[in-house]
């Protein structure tokens, strides 16, 4: 490791996640592997926002799940503040997971439909004993408040909320543990453009206020450009290009990055710098 490791939060080294392919009906034989993530390395410093982009099926989500130990890793190492997550026992992982939380893509399936909003947010607080029992309610109110929901919503169920509101609940739940790293896995792709803007504003404000590190996964390059300081472009399980956001967007080197940038439809070039530099209508 180099001299800058004092603020290095997470380092993933050569992560490989392979899924076995079975054939046969009664006797299943392993016939090969799907290389979902094939040797990806990434460092995240504290307070940094990193975007991970690529088409569906390129392994972005699997990579994120792997470094959080939500998916089994075939090989590679994940260092989180100098501790190797891969060697950890499940019980230890559960304890350290409070420092890295995730917001999932689909707010319709990531919240338990039979729990009220209050208990969804309170559950991690109780599990990790973050606050005293007497302060629990106050903490839940505070969290609802910072994501812009009113305290009257405490006893409602997820199905009573719109997609944007549900995503706010998911963010409140993730922030309840005061994590150091927030992984946002396509948090806005299921939302309308106006709601998407609200959630993006919320994430970027909170990220700055709380000094969070953010790993932002998206297939929407405009969103990544808006929110991230560095970008990694993934294709077929590998990172094909990595660098500062401005470098990637203004001078893409890899042909795949160029195709990706060229493919985004952009409204009106005349509308104050709407356009990416190298896109022709």
């Amino acid at each position, binding site marked *: 490791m180099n001299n800058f490791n004092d603020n290095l939060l997470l380092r993933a080294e050569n992560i490989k996640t392979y899924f076995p392919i079975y054939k046969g009906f009664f006797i299943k034989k392993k016939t090969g592997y799907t290389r979902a993530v094939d040797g990806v390395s990434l460092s995240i410093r504290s307070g940094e926002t990193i975007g991970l982009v690529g088409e569906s099926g390129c392994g972005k989500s699997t990579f994120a799940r792997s470094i959080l130990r939500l998916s089994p890793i075939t090989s590679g190492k994940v260092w989180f503040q100098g501790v190797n997550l891969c060697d950890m026992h499940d019980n230890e992982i559960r304890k350290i997971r409070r420092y890295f939380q995730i917001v999932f893509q689909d707010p319709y399936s990531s919240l338990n439909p039979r729990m009220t909003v209050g208990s969804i947010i309170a559950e991690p607080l109780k599990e990790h004993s973050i606050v005293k029992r007497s302060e629990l309610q106050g903490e839940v109110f505070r969290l609802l408040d910072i994501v812009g929901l009113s305290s009257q919503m405490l006893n409602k169920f997820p199905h009573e909320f719109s997609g944007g509101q549900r995503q706010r609940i998911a963010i409140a739940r993730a922030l309840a543990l005061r994590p150091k790293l927030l992984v946002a896995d396509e948090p806005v792709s299921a939302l309308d*453009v106006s709601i998407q803007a609200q959630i993006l504003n919320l994430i970027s404000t909170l990220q700055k206020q709380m000094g969070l590190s953010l790993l932002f996964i998206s297939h929407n*390059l*405009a969103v990544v450009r808006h929110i991230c300081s560095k970008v990694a472009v993934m294709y077929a399980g590998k990172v094909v290009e990595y660098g500062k956001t401005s470098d990637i*967007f203004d001078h893409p080197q890899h042909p795949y990055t160029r195709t990706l940038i060229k493919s985004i439809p952009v*409204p009106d070039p005349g509308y*104050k710098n*709407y356009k*990416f530099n190298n896109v022709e209508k």
Partner: protein
Amino acid sequence: MALLDVENLTLGFYSEKNKKWSKVLNDVNFSLYENEFLGIVGESGSGKTILANSILNLIPKQGKIVSGSILFKDRDILKLTEDQIRKVRGKDIAIIFQDPMSSLHPLLTVKDQIVETLQAHRLIKKSDAVEIAMNLLRDVKIDRPELVLNKYPFMLSGGIRQRVMIAISISCGPEIVIADEPTTALDVTVQRDILALIKGFKKNLNFSLMLVSHDLGVIWENTDRVVVMYCGRIMESGKTEDVLRNPLHPYTFGLLSSIPRKTGKKLEILKGIRGSIPSLHDFPEHICPFLPRCDFATEKCNRPLLLEQVDRDRFVACFNKGAFK
């Protein structure tokens, strides 16, 4: 001369729970001209899809046309009998649905589905129809169409499925193609290919396209004229360039300012629109529906909304047009 005229279309939906009728489309007026690409844009729940479906008279059971007409070649589509409308659907007016997985028949091969459409509208032998189907697949740029012909939809990728949908829709030489979010479920690179394909057909086949989308980028790059919808009403319509470059309605302005764009400063806060679209049965009836979310509203806005013509081919429904400038 307009190919399709939608006049004062109002469509009601009945809710068993609330025991009341709500207007899912409210006094919608627009025309589709020959050889034109028209965009319909708005948030989900603003009535875009129901508008697209009602042009083919595909209105769900709980819906009822309250007033208005849809004139296609001087015939009111809403007054046609089921047998008559069946001759229009797929032949004169074709539709490409959003989700190619659920809109293709899962138990029929690609060949069966294309041949079915062809034989329903043309008197041809099956062997000829298969030949045409093969050519259609070649037209939508599928490599080795003879392999795809005998496959079932689940064996194909999303992009190929949507190409098959397009092949079916253009198979009988339609005059109007309605594309209801044709690329929303697809990746950006596939989206670009599909839109390029549809645009390419415009040159050879001379149809008009109604492109329903929530993506202003897709609308900007692919349409000549655009209709902005909110709460079942038309908020603004006009030439795509005019509307997106110089929006007059705060809603259009809000949609545009919700999109992250390149600026000198990093991480500016997106202006966007506050709140969210009300559910159908809470649509405000006697005031401007956008009033609760509008940053530029005044007392003037507390009255029924009217779509006004401000320029040739430019309509806006707002009492404070361009107040945000």
